[in-house]
């Protein structure tokens, strides 16, 4: 039960993008088309889940026993960067069009603070191994949800009669803000 609550908490109530404001860069950058938003969400979710597992292992099996917790940032970055490289190779192999669509935002997952935040949160909140994996799945699902919602709205916006001075980045920011406001409604629903 706690695992399900953890998942819902990470995905909806404490959505990484819309209530922690982590990972805003791809949220704005890759949310023009629903299909590429879904793919980006999948890629980030994959990196998140594996990163959550590997960073937990590294933290609890290497850093804590040797008393070098100060190295958590460095080692986490190492894990995330390698994982992103792996995902990049994989996507390039499997789908070249997708690789072209995601463009610069694919290698930029490396510096996506949502993933680093996830790894640091699960250390900070002292999750066990299973919990941090579920936390990762939830965070990834939440990220995908936010991205797809945004992409859906922006696809509609293409057809909308937006006043000239609000077109482009401005209306995107307004939409992002409104989405974040909407997600505030979930605040306090689950406290974990």
């Amino acid at each position, binding site marked *: 039960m706690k695992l399900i609550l953890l998942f819902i908490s990470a995905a909806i109530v404490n959505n990484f993008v819309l209530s922690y404001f982590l990972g805003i860069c791809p949220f704005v950058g890759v949310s023009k088309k629903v299909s590429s938003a879904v793919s980006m969400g999948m890629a980030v979710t994959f990196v998140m889940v594996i990163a959550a597992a590997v960073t937990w292992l*590294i933290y609890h099996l*290497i*850093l804590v026993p*040797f*008393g*070098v917790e100060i*190295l958590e940032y*460095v*080692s986490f970055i*190492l*894990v995330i960067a*390698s994982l992103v*490289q*792996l995902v990049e*190779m*994989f996507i*390039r*192999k499997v789908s*070249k069009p997708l690789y072209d669509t995601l463009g610069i935002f694919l290698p930029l997952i490396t510096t996506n603070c949502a993933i680093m935040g996830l790894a640091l949160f699960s250390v900070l909140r002292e999750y066990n191994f299973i919990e941090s994996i579920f936390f990762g799945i939830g965070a990834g699902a939440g990220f995908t949800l936010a991205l797809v919602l945004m992409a859906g709205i922006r696809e509609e916006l293409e057809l909308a009669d937006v006043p000239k001075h609000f077109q482009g980045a401005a209306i995107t920011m307004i939409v992002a803000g409104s989405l974040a406001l909407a997600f505030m409604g979930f605040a306090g629903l689950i406290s974990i």
Partner: protein
Amino acid sequence: MELQTLLISMGSMGGLGALFSAGLAIANKAFYVEEDPRIAQVLDALPGANCGGCGYPGCGNFAENVVKGIAPVNGCPVGSSDTAKEIAEILGVEAAASQKIIARLMCQGGLEESAVKGVYTGIQSCLAAHILNGGDKLCEYGCLGFGDCVKACPFDAIVMGPDRLPIVIEAKCTGCGNCAEVCPRDVIEMHPENHHILVLCKNLDKGKYAGSVCTKVCIACGLCVRGAEPGEVELKNGLAVINYDKFGDKDVLPTDRCPNNCMLVFPSAKSVSQIDA
């Protein structure tokens, strides 16, 4: 103790780094993407100016699409027909002869020809003048003469003439179209080399007023229409327009009585002599 921490840090991070890099090396082998070697060959044959004249973001994308068969072999407007031939050889297909495309200034309203409505002292840029009040010339369709096209040309193929009209140096023009894009009045057009007769005016004003704006204005009198075979030249919206599908690559003026001499034969002696000077 301190030394021990140092050693542990170095050892653990070094170990992790080595582990991950080994993993990535294996993955790189496993997920190796075979790229068509012809893409690199085509890229070598291209001029590499990355001007975007072909419609793709750069020479790399163009090369990729040529090899895929999406882009035409002669799709590079900058490369000469030699480039097209070379690419065709790499791909083993026949290259259709590509006509060289040249930027043409469709205006003769220099300092002497055009009437002036005032003095423009604003930012010395066509775009600024166009947005503000249309520069100092009375004609609302002609060349503004601040040389945005000169700045936009990546090949130094446009120079500003003495009468404040840009001159296209045909030998240097590659047809990338950057100048036509920046011109706020669309007074530069891209024409194939075999369009020998051009109507060098864009003014849509009505006859009498048009005549007061510029001495080399097309007033749509229709003499050229009558002089040509039916359908070759038409009057559209107050302007003589040559229908090149029917007119073809003739290099004889349809009429020698164009009252304002706004039809010219290209390549013109005038543009060449001015550059030499």
